[in-house]
């Protein structure tokens, strides 16, 4: 019992010592040594050097030792494929062992060794094991088919293992059935269209029989598989449900939730007037409640799922409010989830209790939890009208506590209550105003400003209040700035006489001193509205606003349907479809509920996800990832250059405004012929744009649009922009992405590729008088190595030949080195060697390192040189812009690297031209706040795409470059290449 000693290391010479011990004659010593090796492996040391010695210990009759050796093999076989072959014989032999435990062990381990040659040898033993007399071996072999499929899918199909696996569904042993189901389900996921899991009433019957007999885990596999089946009619649906319901009493929560999934799905098929339908609904509640007495982590998963279930079928848990009351010692993640569900279940019947609870929670310690509780009170008010008054008074009580974050949160929700019940609770405004100074969060400030603006006519000192915010206008967040602008305009429209100065001040702050396009746009719109037609302005700005809806954070119905089909899984925990967090083409199948009612057309609509995942169509709702491309798709696009300016503008003369008087005149200058203002249409939304991002439980998006978005005058042309209007405003805001990308072609004529000058590769001193300098060029798609060979020795050199070591991109001479004449002393000769990229590959450090051997009649000389990676950029490296977008999104942010290029004095167009010479293609360009962003792509000879975003700031010699690539190790090289090309 002192195995822990293996974790303490002896550092120096350890590997050497271990080697000796592994080769010891004494069995015990050997075993000790293997244990040490495994311990080292665990803590992350590289013990791959011991491969042959460890594998030598494999042939042993000591099962414990054997298992340890196997563990080692699974870890290192991939890095030592040639030596792993040594193990094959033992595996094959073990697969014939009389002991079923050993047969199974061999086949289980073999499947984990991902070496092609071993895989070939695996087929025969696997075939035997699938038909083994012992169920233990068969159940292991079943899983092994899935392993093999993961390594080589074609092989599995060719060998007919899929059929054998299907046969195992009828096996007499329940565990074999369960594992076969698991394996088939996994394989079927990667072939969405195959009818692999040919589920028909007969197989379903077999599965349901096995369900009663197999282990808890097996039951989960079977239930998860059953959930993919679509019963033919309601009778079949009911009979399956009847056989699944007993699982709801299982002690394993996963069995319970998987059963719930099957029931929730199949229930859709049942007519609602059926007695059984009601029975089923009643049966679902108790097990869901029981899940809440499980361990906290399971409670968390259960609560996330209940959140979905409650949205889909609120009737199931409507009487169970109390069980979601927060317990003092619940972990915070459980508390937050319970709170969410409490609000979903809140109704007139239980609101008193809920409010009492929420009030208790608002005095807890955890800030997040308290905030959420306060917000919940507001949501109750909006949801249950009868409780609104009580909620408001509770919120006022909370404001009296003067706890800073409680006050702020309360003000945000009171704003929402005002929007749901206008002109009802204005009496509280005075209290709110008292707390004005303590608000430091943008959301709370914005909410307060909105309230002041909206009820300006009832607040005597509204102008003073708003003016106080104006002082630090530019330090406020956009949200607050926009709100302040709107509020002051409202105030002005309500009390025009006293607030002229104020409104002019804010308009000029917004339009002239701000570089935020949203703010400017809104400022100009107000300005023009006020100057052209004050009556219309009043109609627009003070229009009656639509009431906010009751349920604000419901999951979008199609997503909800999909998530219901994923109950119990990670998707249901994240509330995101699997495609949002699973890489590659796997799991992109969208599941839908097939209902007798509702919108279900087909059950599964498989996506056409290509292997690269490039064209992986995102689902209807994807979470906003907040990455760069997301920004690109956003509304605040301001492309600078060409693009047809839409004909617009009815030039309004300055004299037309009487409302604002002379003060405004001076602001606007004397220009009588204003430049045309483009018609603003709604920015076209790319299909990738989320229809509804899972918004946090606040209403900020609606809020922003509340005043402006809905106004009918929005799209109409306005006149009279001031002379000082920034250039970007003149550009069309419409067109969005498409226009942006049309620029790509017009970037200008490419210049020739930059070829670095020759550098000295092999000094004469090191090579008995042979001096080689050289460089690499790419011409018309051919890579050449250009060398000058200089004979500085005293004798003639001849018989030149060249060879490369294996390298990162498989560069190899495409032909022999053509130096036909002997090289006399002090003579030099130029040689060009065409290169191919089909040679053997080995990763080098640095990546673009090339080791070369040159032979002549005297000796062989070695040197290494580095080639610019642009040699490998192929001519068709220009990506389609849609593909670019998708790829950029698809590559995880971890793979992004950022670099600075210093002291580069090119403008963006010149840079783009220069880069194009090296097959770095500019796909799109956009300009934001004086910064040019170039989106570029390049493709390496081995098919790796590199995507780049180059940021060039006017007048700043430092460029920033972000590179994204599926193989992030190339980024450094690519960056160096950029630097080289741009600086020369």
């Amino acid at each position, binding site marked *: 019992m*002192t195995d822990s000693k293996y974790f303490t290391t002896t550092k120096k010479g350890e590997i050497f010592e271990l080697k000796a011990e592994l080769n010891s004659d004494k069995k015990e010593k050997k075993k000790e040594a293997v244990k040490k090796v495994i311990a080292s492996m665990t803590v992350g040391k590289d013990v791959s050097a011991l491969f042959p010695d460890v594998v030598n210990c494999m042939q042993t009759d000591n099962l414990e030792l054997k298992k340890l050796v196997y563990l080692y093999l699974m870890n290192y076989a991939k890095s030592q494929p040639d030596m792993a072959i040594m193990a094959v014989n033992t595996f094959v032999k073990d697969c014939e062992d009389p002991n079923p435990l050993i047969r199974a062990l061999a086949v289980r381990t073999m499947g*984990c060794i991902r070496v092609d040659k071993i895989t070939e040898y695996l087929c025969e033993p696997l075939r035997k094991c699938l038909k083994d007399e012992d169920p233990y*071996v068969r159940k292991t072999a079943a899983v092994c088919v899935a392993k093999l499929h993961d390594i080589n899918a074609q092989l599995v199909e060719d060998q007919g293992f899929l059929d054998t696996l299907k046969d195992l569904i009828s096996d007499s042993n329940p565990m074999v059935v369960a594992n076969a189901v698991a394996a088939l389900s996994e394989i079927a996921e990667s072939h969405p269209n195959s009818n692999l899991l040919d589920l028909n009433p007969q197989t379903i019957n077999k599965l349901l029989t096995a369900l009663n007999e197999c282990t808890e885990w097996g039951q989960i596999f079977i239930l998860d598989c059953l959930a993919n089946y679509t019963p033919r009619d309601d009778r079949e649906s009911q009979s399956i449900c009847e056989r699944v319901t007993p699982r709801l*009493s299982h002690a394993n929560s996963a069995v319970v939730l998987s059963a719930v999934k099957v029931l929730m799905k199949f229930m859709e098929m049942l007519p609602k007037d059926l007695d059984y339908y009601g029975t089923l609904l009643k049966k679902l509640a108790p097990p869901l409640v029981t899940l809440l007495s499980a361990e906290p982590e399971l409670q968390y998963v259960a609560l996330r799922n209940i959140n979905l279930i409650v949205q889909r079928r609120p009737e199931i848990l409507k009487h169970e409010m109390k069980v979601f009351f927060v317990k003092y010692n619940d972990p915070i993640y459980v508390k937050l989830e319970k709170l969410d569900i409490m609000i979903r279940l809140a109704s007139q019947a239980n609101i008193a*209790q809920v409010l009492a609870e929420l009030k208790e929670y608002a005095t807890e310690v955890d800030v997040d939890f308290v905030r959420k509780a306060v917000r919940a009170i507001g949501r109750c008010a909006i949801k249950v009208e009868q409780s609104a008054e009580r909620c408001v008074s509770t919120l006022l009580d909370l404001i009296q506590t003067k706890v800073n974050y409680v006050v702020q949160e309360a003000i945000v929700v009171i704003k929402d209550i005002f929007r749901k019940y206008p002109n009802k609770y204005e009496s509280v405004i005075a209290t709110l105003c008292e707390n004005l100074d303590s608000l430091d969060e943008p959301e709370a400030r914005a909410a307060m400003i909105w309230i002041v603006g909206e009820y300006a006519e009832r607040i005597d000192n509204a102008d003073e209040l708003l003016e106080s915010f104006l002082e630090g206008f530019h330090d406020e967040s956009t949200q607050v700035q926009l709100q302040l602008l709107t509020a002051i305009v409202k105030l002005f429209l309500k009390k025009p006489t006293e607030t002229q100065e104020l409104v002019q001040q804010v308009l000029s702050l917004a339009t002239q001193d701000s570089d935020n396009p949203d703010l400017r746009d809104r400022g100009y719109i107000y300005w023009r509205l006020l100057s052209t037609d004050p009556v219309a302005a009043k109609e627009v700005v003070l229009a009656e606003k639509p009431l906010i809806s009751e349920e604000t954070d419901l999951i979008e119905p199609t997503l909800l349907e999909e998530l219901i089909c994923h109950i119990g899984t990670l998707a249901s925990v994240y509330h995101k479809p699997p495609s949002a967090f699973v890489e590659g083409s796997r799991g992109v199948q969208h599941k839908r509920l097939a209902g007798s009612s509702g919108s279900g057309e087909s059950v599964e609509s498989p996506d056409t996800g290509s292997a690269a995942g490039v064209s992986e169509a995102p689902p209807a709702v994807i979470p906003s990832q907040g990455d760069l491309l997301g920004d690109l798709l956003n509304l605040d696009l301001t492309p600078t250059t060409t693009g047809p300016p839409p004909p617009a503008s009815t030039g309004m003369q300055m004299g037309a405004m009487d409302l604002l008087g002379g003060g405004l005149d001076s602001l606007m200058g004397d220009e009588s012929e204003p430049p045309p203002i483009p018609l603003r249409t709604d920015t076209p939304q790319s299909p990738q744009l989320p229809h509804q991002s899972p918004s946090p439980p606040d209403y900020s998006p609606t809020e922003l649009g509340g005043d402006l978005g809905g106004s009918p005058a929005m799209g109409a042309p306005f006149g009279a922009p001031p002379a000082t209007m920034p250039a970007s405003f003149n550009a069309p805001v419409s067109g969005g992405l498409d226009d942006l990308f049309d620029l790509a072609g017009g970037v200008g004529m490419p210049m020739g590729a930059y070829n670095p000058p020759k550098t000295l590769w092999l000094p004469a001193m090191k090579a008995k008088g042979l001096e080689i300098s050289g460089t690499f060029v790419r011409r018309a798609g051919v890579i050449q190595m250009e060398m000058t060979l200089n004979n500085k020795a005293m004798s003639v050199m001849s018989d030149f030949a060249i060879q490369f070591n294996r390298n990162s991109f498989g560069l190899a001479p495409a032909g022999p080195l053509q130096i036909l004449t002997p090289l006399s002393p002090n003579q030099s000769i130029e040689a060009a060697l065409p290169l191919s990229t089909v040679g053997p590959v080995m990763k080098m450090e640095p990546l673009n390192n090339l080791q070369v051997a040159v032979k002549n009649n005297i000796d062989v000389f070695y040197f290494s040189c580095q080639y610019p990676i642009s040699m490998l950029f192929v001519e068709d490296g220009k990506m389609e812009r849609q593909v670019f977008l998708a790829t950029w999104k698809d590559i995880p942010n971890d793979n992004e690297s950022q670099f600075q290029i210093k002291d580069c004095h090119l403008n963006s167009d010149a840079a783009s031209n220069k880069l194009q010479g090296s097959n770095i293609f500019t796909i799109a360009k956009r300009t934001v706040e004086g910064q040019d962003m170039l989106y570029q792509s390049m493709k390496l000879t081995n098919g790796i795409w590199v995507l780049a975003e180059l940021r060039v700031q006017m007048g700043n010699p430092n460029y920033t470059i972000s590179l994204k690539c599926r193989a992030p190790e190339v980024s450094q090289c690519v960056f160096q290449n950029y630097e080289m090309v741009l600086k020369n």
Partner: protein
Amino acid sequence: MIGGLFIYNHKGEVLISRVYRDDIGRNAVDAFRVNVIHARQQVRSPVTNIARTSFFHVKRSNIWLAAVTKQNVNATMVFEFLYKMCDVMSAYFGKISEENVKNNFVLIYELLDEILDFGYPQNSETGALKTFITQQGIKSQHHSKEEQSQITSQVTGQIGWRREGIKYRRNELFLDVLESVNLLMSPQGQVLSAHVSGRVVMKSYLSGMPECKFGMNDKIVIDKQGKGGSSEDGAKSGKQSIAIDDCTFHQCVRLSKFDSERSISFIPPDGDYELMRYRTTKDIILPFRVIPLVREVGRTKLEVKVVIKSNFKSSLLAQKIEVRIPTPLNTSGVQLICMKGKAKYKASENAIVWKVKRMAGMKESQISAEIELLPNDKKKWARPPISMNFEVPFAPSGLKVRYLKVFEPKLNYSDHDVIKWVRYIGRSGIYETRC
């Protein structure tokens, strides 16, 4: 499915790392350490997504267990598996501590190889595992052929939790009904919420493959049997039966039989196991009633009087009684008088803790306290609830074991030969009275 499983110590050093899937790299080990174990802010979810890799974790004392995946796995199953893994490890070597994990790392790797194949959980019942995963590696070589096939059929069979051929000289059964009773009561004595969560925990030492049948005073069963009887009978049995809201069973119980006949029949595992869990909300016997009286005397003084009344048969004794009375944050001094037990003001916990060792049924006792307050505090005191702990020798849900029958047709012992022990323990869960 599960792509890998790591065990770390509290410092974030890896003790065990087993990777099952090719999509999980070594960097996942570090990602979890950096983003969860060493995270500056305490992690607020047991599931963490780091760079499209999901990590599930549970903690046992100082030890972190993390399961990793890149796929849309069954999250519930992953957590259930992690708990199971903990159970199995405890069954093999006791407490899960760094020392024990290091000492048994070879065994843990062997277990991980057996109970998780390509990320799919396999049979993880300790009873079965112990037959062929032993710490003496050599021994497993010497199984005879019959023994081997017996092992494999048990591991894969319908009764994976029990091996054949168990023999005891004395056939014994221990049955514990363990309940925790939860209450939230208003100051006026109105029950806001109350429920009992109970467990039936067994220890069985029985020979062979016995078939057991467990019966309790479940209302549904009693009503069914009472059908056709006189109405008087019905009323009588109605009093003694309890309504169970929901129950879950160990995997040895035949669920379909429970679903159709509501009878609990099973072949038990050997040794300790939890047969069932249940929950009731109706007709709960609340063992104690707490009556609080709080009076604010001016701004600097508070008078608190708390009466507890025991509400069960006078022949029974409750134990380990503890009442916690929260005090305001600005308390400067407390004077206490109690009739029974010991009481103390604990300033660090902002509470008066009153302990009574034993108390018989149908009694009452009281404590009075004078709390002096510092006047400067502006905030109103939130008045947290008074909580209570205790242990009573009966089941507050009213559950009664009616029978536990054992049939072993192949061996010659009968139900009468089995020595059975039944015990009821009721404990307080969250037992609070607002004041």
